[in-house]
C-alpha cells in the first residue's frame, strides 16, 4: 500500500469514526443509535487494520479482527437485547404509547440542536488540546489524534446529558472507543495484555449495566434516569 493511499484510507476511517459519534448525538431512536455505534466499531477496527497492513504487523490485523467482533458485533448485540428486554411482552399492546417511548431518547437534558453545536465546540477543543500530541511525532496517524480525543469528549457529553439508561451506556462506549482509537493512532495500540484486559473490562461493564437496566426496569418501571432521584443531599 502506498503512503498516499494509506493516509487517504486512514483519514477516511477516522472521518467515519467521528461522524458516527456525531450521528449518535443527532438521532433519538435507540435502535438507530445502536446501529450507528456498530458502524463506528467497524470504522474503529479499520484503523488497526490499516496500520497493520502498512507496518506489516500480523498481530495488529488480528487485534483489528478482535475489535470488530467485540465492538461491531457483541456489544451492539448485547445492547439490542437490553433494548428488547426494556420493552417486554406485556407492553406490546400499548407500545404505541409507552413502549415506543422506552425506545427513544425523548428529552435529553440539552436539546439536540444545542448538543450538536456543543459537539462542534468539543471537536475544536480536542483539536486545541491535541496540538502538543501531534507536535511530538507528526505522522499521518498522530495527525488524526484529535479525532480520538473528540470522540472521547462527545462520549462524555452523551453520558452527561442523555436520560435513557441505554443511551448512557452508548455514551460510555463512545468514550471507550475514543480511547482505543487514541491508543492506535498514537502508538499503534497498547501492549496486547492491556488491550485484552481493557476489552474484557468493557464487556463486563456493559453486561453489568445491562443487568442493572433490567433491574431498574423492574424496580422503577422505566429506564428513564430522571427517576433516579431518591439519593441526594
Amino acid at each position, binding site marked *: 500500500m502506498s503512503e498516499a493511499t494509506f493516509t487517504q484510507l486512514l483519514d477516511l476511517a477516522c472521518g467515519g469514526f467521528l461522524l458516527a459519534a456525531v450521528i449518535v448525538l443527532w438521532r433519538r431512536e435507540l435502535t438507530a443509535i445502536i446501529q450507528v455505534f456498530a458502524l463506528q466499531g467497524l470504522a474503529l477496527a479499520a484503523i488497526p487494520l490499516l496500520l497493520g497492513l502498512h507496518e506489516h504487523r500480523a498481530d495488529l490485523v488480528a487485534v483489528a479482527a478482535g475489535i470488530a467482533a467485540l465492538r461491531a458485533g457483541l456489544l451492539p448485540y448485547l445492547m439490542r437485547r437490553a433494548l428488547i428486554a426494556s420493552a417486554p411482552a406485556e407492553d406490546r399492546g400499548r407500545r404505541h404509547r409507552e413502549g415506543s417511548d422506552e425506545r427513544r431518547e425523548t428529552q435529553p437534558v440539552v436539546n439536540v440542536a444545542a448538543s450538536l453545536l456543543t459537539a462542534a465546540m468539543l471537536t475544536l477543543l480536542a483539536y486545541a488540546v491535541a496540538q502538543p500530541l501531534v507536535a511530538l511525532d507528526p505522522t499521518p496517524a498522530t495527525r488524526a489524534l484529535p479525532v480520538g480525543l473528540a470522540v472521547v469528549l462527545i462520549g462524555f457529553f452523551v453520558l452527561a446529558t442523555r436520560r435513557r439508561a441505554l443511551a448512557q451506556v452508548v455514551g460510555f462506549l463512545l468514550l471507550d472507543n475514543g480511547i482505543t482509537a487514541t491508543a492506535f493512532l498514537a502508538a499503534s495500540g*497498547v*501492549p496486547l*495484555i492491556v488491550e485484552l484486559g481493557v476489552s474484557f473490562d468493557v464487556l463486563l*461493564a456493559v453486561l453489568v449495566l445491562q443487568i*442493572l437496566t433490567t433491574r*431498574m426496569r423492574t424496580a422503577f418501571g422505566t429506564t428513564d434516569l430522571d427517576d*433516579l432521584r431518591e439519593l441526594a443531599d
Partner: protein
Amino acid sequence: MTVEASALWLTAPVAVPLAVAAVYAIPRGRPLTPWAGLLSPAAIVAGAIALATVVRDAGPVRAYGQLLRADALTVWLLLAVGAVALLACAANPAYLAGEQAAGRAGSRTVRRYQALVHAFLAAMCAALLAANIGVMWVAIEATTIVTAFLVGHRRTRTSIEAAWKYVVICSAGIALALLGIVLLYYAARAAHVPEAQALDWTTLLAHADRLDPAVTRLAIALVILGFGAKAGLVPLHAWLPDAHSQAPAPVSALMSGVLLAVSFTALLRCKAIADQALGVGFTRALLIGIALLTLAVAVGLLLGQQDYKRMLAYSSMEHMSLIALGAAIGTELALAAALLHIAGHGLAKTVAFCSAGQVLQLHRSTRIDRVRGVLARTPALGAAFGLAVVALLGLPPFSLFASEVALARAGFAAGLGWPTGLALLLVLAAFAALAVRTGQLLLGPAPAGPTHPVPAATTAGGPAGGPPDAPMPDSPHESAAPDTDPADPGPARTARGAGLPLGLGLLACAVLGITTGPLADLLSDAAAIVSGS
C-alpha cells in the same frame, strides 16, 4: 528467600481470594462455613508479611517477568488491605446472618455475595501487585465491576440507583485515567522505550526525564482526574456517598477503607513518573486544588447530614482529601503521613461502617433522628461506633492523630502554609459536624423503650454471631471520653460475635498511633519510593 518462594508470595494475595471466590461461586448442597472467608485475608496478610521481609532485605521483587512486582509501597498497602479485609470478612458472617434472619437473603444470595467479596479482594491485590500500569488500570476497573453488584446487592430502588451511578461515574472517570495512561505510553514510545516495557512502572520512572513534558502534563492531569474519581476526589465524586451508604456494611468498609486508597496508590505511582518528568509544581498545584475542593464539598455536606452512613461516606472524602494533600506536599514526611493515614483511616472506617451496619440491622433506619440513644440501648455497639468516630475525628491515641499532625507539620515545613491552614480549618468544621451528629446518634435515653438491652437485638443477630449487647457492662461514658484505654473496648469480649473484629480494629488503629514498631522502616521506604528521593 528463593525466587520461587517470592513468586509464590506475590501470587498468593491474588490467587487465594480468587480460589475462595470460585469455591463460593460453585453451587453446593451444604453451605460453606462462613468462616472460610477468612482464608483470603489471611493469605493477603501472610503474603504481605513475607514480602515485607524480602523487600527489606533485597529490594523490590518481581515474578512472571513483567507481570507482578512488589516494593515497600505495595507491601504497606497490602498490609492495609489485608488488615481491613480481615476485619470486614470477620464481620461478614454476622451481617449475612442478620440478613438471612430478616428474610432479605437466601443461600444463593449469600453465596454470590461471598464470591463477589473475594473477587473484589483479588482485584484490589492485583491492582497493587501489577508491575504494568496498564494492568493496574485493568484491575482497578475490575473492582468497579465486581463491586457494582455488591452495591446493588439488596435490589431496592435506592441500591439500584446507587449501583448505576457508581458504575457509570466510576467507569467513565477511570476511563480518563486509561486515556492518560495511553498518552504516557505514547510519550514513552516517542522516547524510544521498547514496546514491551513502555508501561512498566520502573522502566517509565527510569526514563521519566526523557518524556515529552507537554504530553506528560496532559497525561498526568487525566490520570489524576481519573483515578481521583475512583478515590472519591472532585469533580467525579458524586457516586461515593450513594454507593457507600447503600452497600452492605462490610463492603462499605472495604470500599471506603481500602479501595479508595488502592486507587489513590495508582495515582501516586503515576504522579511519581510525572514529577520526574515535569518537576513537582504541576501535580502539586493540581492535587492541592482538588484536595481543598473535595474537603470543602465534604465538609459542606457533612454539616447538614441526617444519614449516618452517608455521614461516614463524606468523612471518607474528607480523609481522602487529606491524603491527597499529603501527596501534593510530596516531601517524604508528608507521604509517610499520608500512607499512615491510609492505614489508620482504613481501620477506623472499617470499624465505623461495620458497627453502623449493625445499628442499621437493629434499628432499620439510617436516619440519625430516628435512631438516637444507641449507647443506652446497645452500649457495646454504641461504644465501638463512638470510638471509631473518635478515631476518625483525629483524636489521640489513634493513628489518625499522629498522621494528621505529621501532615500539618510537613505542610508548613514545605512552605505550603496557606493550603495547609485552610485544610486544617475545614477539618475543624468537619470535626464539629461529625462530633455533633454522632453525639445525637449515640447519646440520650433510649426513646420509649427499655433502657436495658433490647431483646429484639438478640433475635436479629442470628446464629453465627450474637450481637454485642446484653453481657456488656461498659458504661456509656467510655465513648464520650476518648482518652480511656482503647485497648479495652467492650465488644472485644464477645468471642465469636461481630464484636471481636470491631475491638481488634480499634486496637490496631490505636497501636499504630502510638508506635509503628517494626513497620517504621517499611513506611519510610514506601514514602521514599513515591517521593522520588
